[in-house]
Protein backbone atom coordinates (compact mmCIF):
# COMPACT_ATOMS: atom_id res chain seq x y z
CA UNK A 1 0.00 0.00 0.00
CA UNK A 2 2.67 2.44 -0.93
CA UNK A 3 1.76 5.94 -1.91
CA UNK A 4 4.49 5.92 -4.57
CA UNK A 5 2.36 4.98 -7.55
CA UNK A 6 4.03 7.27 -10.06
CA UNK A 7 6.80 5.02 -11.40
CA UNK A 8 6.01 2.49 -14.15
CA UNK A 9 5.39 -0.93 -12.62
CA UNK A 10 7.75 -3.31 -14.35
CA UNK A 11 8.19 -6.35 -12.15
CA UNK A 12 6.73 -6.98 -8.70
CA UNK A 13 8.87 -8.46 -5.97
CA UNK A 14 6.00 -10.80 -5.06
CA UNK A 15 5.35 -12.05 -8.61
CA UNK A 16 6.73 -15.59 -8.62
CA UNK A 17 8.27 -17.22 -11.68
CA UNK A 18 5.21 -19.46 -12.10
CA UNK A 19 2.90 -16.44 -12.20
CA UNK A 20 1.52 -16.72 -8.67
CA UNK A 21 1.36 -13.88 -6.16
CA UNK A 22 3.67 -14.91 -3.33
CA UNK A 23 2.50 -12.18 -0.96
CA UNK A 24 0.28 -14.09 1.45
CA UNK A 25 -1.19 -10.94 2.97
CA UNK A 26 -2.04 -9.49 -0.44
CA UNK A 27 -3.80 -12.69 -1.47
CA UNK A 28 -5.89 -12.63 1.71
CA UNK A 29 -6.99 -9.04 1.23
CA UNK A 30 -7.75 -9.68 -2.43
CA UNK A 31 -9.92 -12.64 -1.50
CA UNK A 32 -11.81 -11.13 1.42
CA UNK A 33 -11.92 -7.42 0.80
CA UNK A 34 -11.65 -7.05 -2.95
CA UNK A 35 -13.87 -10.14 -3.42
CA UNK A 36 -11.46 -11.66 -5.95
CA UNK A 37 -12.45 -15.27 -5.32
CA UNK A 38 -9.83 -17.91 -6.12
CA UNK A 39 -7.28 -15.17 -6.68
CA UNK A 40 -3.84 -16.61 -6.93
CA UNK A 41 -2.28 -15.89 -10.30
CA UNK A 42 -1.07 -12.37 -10.89
CA UNK A 43 -1.23 -10.89 -14.39
CA UNK A 44 0.90 -7.83 -14.91
CA UNK A 45 -1.43 -6.10 -17.35
CA UNK A 46 -4.48 -6.81 -15.23
CA UNK A 47 -3.28 -6.60 -11.64
CA UNK A 48 -0.19 -4.43 -11.27
CA UNK A 49 -1.82 -1.06 -11.65
CA UNK A 50 -4.45 -1.49 -8.96
CA UNK A 51 -2.36 -3.46 -6.50
CA UNK A 52 -1.36 -1.55 -3.39
CA UNK A 53 0.92 -4.38 -2.30
CA UNK A 54 3.14 -3.89 -5.38
CA UNK A 55 6.85 -3.63 -4.57
CA UNK A 56 9.31 -3.10 -7.40
CA UNK A 57 11.72 -6.00 -7.62
CA UNK A 58 15.29 -4.73 -7.17
CA UNK A 59 17.56 -5.09 -10.18
CA UNK A 60 20.46 -7.40 -9.31
CA UNK A 61 23.86 -5.68 -9.59
CA UNK A 62 25.85 -6.62 -12.73
Amino acid sequence: MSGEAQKPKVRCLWHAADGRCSNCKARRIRNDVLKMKDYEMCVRERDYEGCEFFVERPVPPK
Partner: protein
Amino acid sequence: MSPDEMLELLEDLLADDTRERSLEELERLSREGCADARVVTYLIPILHHPDAGTRRRASWLMGKLAQNKVSTFWPLEELNGLLHDDDPEVRENAAWAIGELTSMKVGGLGSIEPLNALLADGVPSVRGMAAWAIGRMAERMGLGFQSSVGPLRALLDDRYETVRLSARYALDHLMAIGVEG
Protein backbone atom coordinates in the same frame (compact mmCIF):
# COMPACT_ATOMS: atom_id res chain seq x y z
CA MET B 1 12.27 -32.77 7.13
CA SER B 2 12.51 -35.14 10.10
CA PRO B 3 11.34 -34.03 13.58
CA ASP B 4 14.95 -33.99 14.75
CA GLU B 5 16.05 -31.82 11.83
CA MET B 6 13.22 -29.41 12.59
CA LEU B 7 14.27 -29.25 16.23
CA GLU B 8 17.81 -28.42 15.16
CA LEU B 9 16.49 -25.68 12.89
CA LEU B 10 14.42 -24.27 15.75
CA GLU B 11 17.37 -24.28 18.12
CA ASP B 12 19.25 -22.30 15.47
CA LEU B 13 16.63 -19.59 15.95
CA LEU B 14 17.93 -18.96 19.44
CA ALA B 15 21.55 -18.23 18.48
CA ASP B 16 22.60 -14.91 16.96
CA ASP B 17 24.90 -16.43 14.35
CA THR B 18 22.34 -18.92 12.96
CA ARG B 19 19.06 -17.03 13.40
CA GLU B 20 18.90 -15.43 9.93
CA ARG B 21 19.47 -18.72 8.13
CA SER B 22 16.92 -20.44 10.36
CA LEU B 23 14.29 -17.75 9.69
CA GLU B 24 14.92 -18.03 5.95
CA GLU B 25 14.41 -21.79 6.03
CA LEU B 26 11.30 -21.51 8.21
CA GLU B 27 9.85 -18.97 5.75
CA ARG B 28 10.43 -21.42 2.91
CA LEU B 29 8.89 -24.31 4.84
CA SER B 30 5.87 -22.29 5.92
CA ARG B 31 5.22 -21.22 2.34
CA GLU B 32 5.17 -24.94 1.53
CA GLY B 33 2.51 -25.49 4.19
CA CYS B 34 4.55 -26.31 7.30
CA ALA B 35 2.21 -26.72 10.29
CA ASP B 36 4.65 -27.75 13.01
CA ALA B 37 3.34 -26.34 16.28
CA ARG B 38 6.82 -26.14 17.79
CA VAL B 39 7.67 -23.27 15.45
CA VAL B 40 5.12 -21.03 17.17
CA THR B 41 6.64 -21.72 20.58
CA TYR B 42 10.19 -21.08 19.44
CA LEU B 43 9.20 -17.84 17.71
CA ILE B 44 7.77 -16.23 20.85
CA PRO B 45 11.08 -14.87 22.22
CA ILE B 46 12.08 -13.69 18.72
CA LEU B 47 9.00 -11.45 18.62
CA HIS B 48 10.80 -9.27 21.18
CA HIS B 49 14.14 -9.09 19.37
CA PRO B 50 15.63 -5.58 19.40
CA ASP B 51 16.14 -5.62 15.62
CA ALA B 52 12.96 -4.58 13.79
CA GLY B 53 13.88 -6.66 10.73
CA THR B 54 14.01 -9.80 12.86
CA ARG B 55 10.68 -8.95 14.50
CA ARG B 56 9.17 -8.45 11.03
CA ARG B 57 10.27 -11.90 9.93
CA ALA B 58 9.11 -13.57 13.16
CA SER B 59 5.73 -11.85 13.09
CA TRP B 60 5.28 -12.69 9.39
CA LEU B 61 5.91 -16.33 10.26
CA MET B 62 3.26 -16.11 12.98
CA GLY B 63 0.75 -14.89 10.38
CA LYS B 64 1.73 -17.55 7.89
CA LEU B 65 1.55 -20.35 10.47
CA ALA B 66 -1.87 -19.08 11.52
CA GLN B 67 -2.88 -19.18 7.84
CA ASN B 68 -1.56 -22.75 7.73
CA LYS B 69 -3.93 -23.48 10.63
CA VAL B 70 -1.28 -24.67 13.04
CA SER B 71 -3.04 -26.17 16.03
CA THR B 72 -1.29 -25.14 19.23
CA PHE B 73 -1.54 -22.86 22.24
CA TRP B 74 -1.43 -19.53 20.41
CA PRO B 75 0.16 -16.61 22.29
CA LEU B 76 -2.68 -14.14 21.82
CA GLU B 77 -1.37 -11.72 24.43
CA GLU B 78 1.98 -11.61 22.63
CA LEU B 79 0.21 -10.84 19.35
CA ASN B 80 -1.91 -8.16 21.02
CA GLY B 81 1.31 -6.65 22.38
CA LEU B 82 2.82 -6.58 18.88
CA LEU B 83 -0.06 -4.36 17.74
CA HIS B 84 1.81 -1.63 19.68
CA ASP B 85 5.22 -2.35 18.12
CA ASP B 86 7.27 0.62 16.91
CA ASP B 87 7.62 -0.93 13.46
CA PRO B 88 4.58 -0.65 11.14
CA GLU B 89 5.23 -3.94 9.35
CA VAL B 90 5.28 -5.76 12.69
CA ARG B 91 1.95 -4.13 13.62
CA GLU B 92 0.52 -5.14 10.26
CA ASN B 93 1.77 -8.72 10.62
CA ALA B 94 0.29 -9.00 14.11
CA ALA B 95 -3.10 -7.86 12.83
CA TRP B 96 -2.78 -10.32 9.95
CA ALA B 97 -2.01 -13.19 12.37
CA ILE B 98 -4.96 -12.28 14.60
CA GLY B 99 -7.25 -12.22 11.58
CA GLU B 100 -5.95 -15.54 10.27
CA LEU B 101 -6.41 -17.23 13.65
CA THR B 102 -10.15 -16.63 13.47
CA SER B 103 -10.33 -19.44 10.89
CA MET B 104 -9.63 -21.81 13.78
CA LYS B 105 -11.93 -19.91 16.16
CA VAL B 106 -8.87 -18.69 18.03
CA GLY B 107 -9.18 -15.13 19.27
CA GLY B 108 -10.55 -12.96 22.01
CA LEU B 109 -12.13 -9.65 22.82
CA GLY B 110 -8.76 -8.43 24.12
CA SER B 111 -7.62 -7.85 20.54
CA ILE B 112 -10.41 -5.50 19.59
CA GLU B 113 -9.42 -2.29 21.37
CA PRO B 114 -5.77 -2.42 20.20
CA LEU B 115 -7.05 -3.11 16.67
CA ASN B 116 -9.41 -0.14 17.00
CA ALA B 117 -6.39 2.02 17.87
CA LEU B 118 -4.65 0.88 14.68
CA LEU B 119 -7.56 2.16 12.59
CA ALA B 120 -5.98 5.60 13.13
CA ASP B 121 -2.45 4.42 12.32
CA GLY B 122 -0.38 6.68 10.08
CA VAL B 123 0.51 3.78 7.77
CA PRO B 124 -2.26 2.75 5.36
CA SER B 125 -1.34 -0.95 5.25
CA VAL B 126 -1.69 -1.07 9.04
CA ARG B 127 -5.09 0.67 8.99
CA GLY B 128 -6.31 -1.69 6.28
CA MET B 129 -5.09 -4.85 7.97
CA ALA B 130 -6.58 -3.79 11.31
CA ALA B 131 -9.95 -3.20 9.66
CA TRP B 132 -9.74 -6.58 7.93
CA ALA B 133 -8.89 -8.32 11.22
CA ILE B 134 -11.87 -6.69 12.95
CA GLY B 135 -14.05 -7.86 10.07
CA ARG B 136 -12.69 -11.39 10.32
CA MET B 137 -13.36 -11.55 14.05
CA ALA B 138 -16.96 -10.57 13.38
CA GLU B 139 -17.34 -12.90 10.41
CA ARG B 140 -15.66 -16.01 11.76
CA MET B 141 -16.21 -15.72 15.52
CA GLY B 142 -19.18 -13.41 15.94
CA LEU B 143 -17.02 -11.03 18.01
CA GLY B 144 -17.21 -7.27 17.81
CA PHE B 145 -17.61 -4.09 19.79
CA GLN B 146 -19.62 -0.98 18.98
CA SER B 147 -16.44 1.00 19.64
CA SER B 148 -15.10 -0.16 16.25
CA VAL B 149 -17.97 1.30 14.27
CA GLY B 150 -17.10 5.01 14.45
CA PRO B 151 -13.42 4.63 13.52
CA LEU B 152 -14.35 2.21 10.71
CA ARG B 153 -16.91 4.66 9.32
CA ALA B 154 -14.23 7.34 9.31
CA LEU B 155 -12.08 5.05 7.14
CA LEU B 156 -14.78 4.92 4.45
CA ASP B 157 -13.27 8.26 3.33
CA ASP B 158 -9.64 7.13 3.56
CA ARG B 159 -7.46 8.18 0.64
CA TYR B 160 -6.47 4.54 -0.01
CA GLU B 161 -8.98 2.30 -1.74
CA THR B 162 -7.91 -0.90 0.02
CA VAL B 163 -8.36 0.80 3.39
CA ARG B 164 -11.82 2.01 2.40
CA LEU B 165 -12.83 -1.44 1.19
CA SER B 166 -11.39 -3.13 4.28
CA ALA B 167 -13.47 -0.80 6.46
CA ARG B 168 -16.56 -1.61 4.39
CA TYR B 169 -15.83 -5.33 4.78
CA ALA B 170 -15.55 -4.95 8.57
CA LEU B 171 -18.67 -2.80 8.91
CA ASP B 172 -20.72 -5.26 6.84
CA HIS B 173 -19.68 -8.17 9.07
CA LEU B 174 -20.21 -6.20 12.28
CA MET B 175 -23.66 -5.26 11.08
CA ALA B 176 -24.36 -8.93 10.31
CA ILE B 177 -23.80 -9.81 13.97
CA GLY B 178 -25.89 -6.90 15.18
CA VAL B 179 -23.11 -4.44 16.01
CA GLU B 180 -24.01 -1.02 14.66
CA GLY B 181 -23.26 2.52 15.66
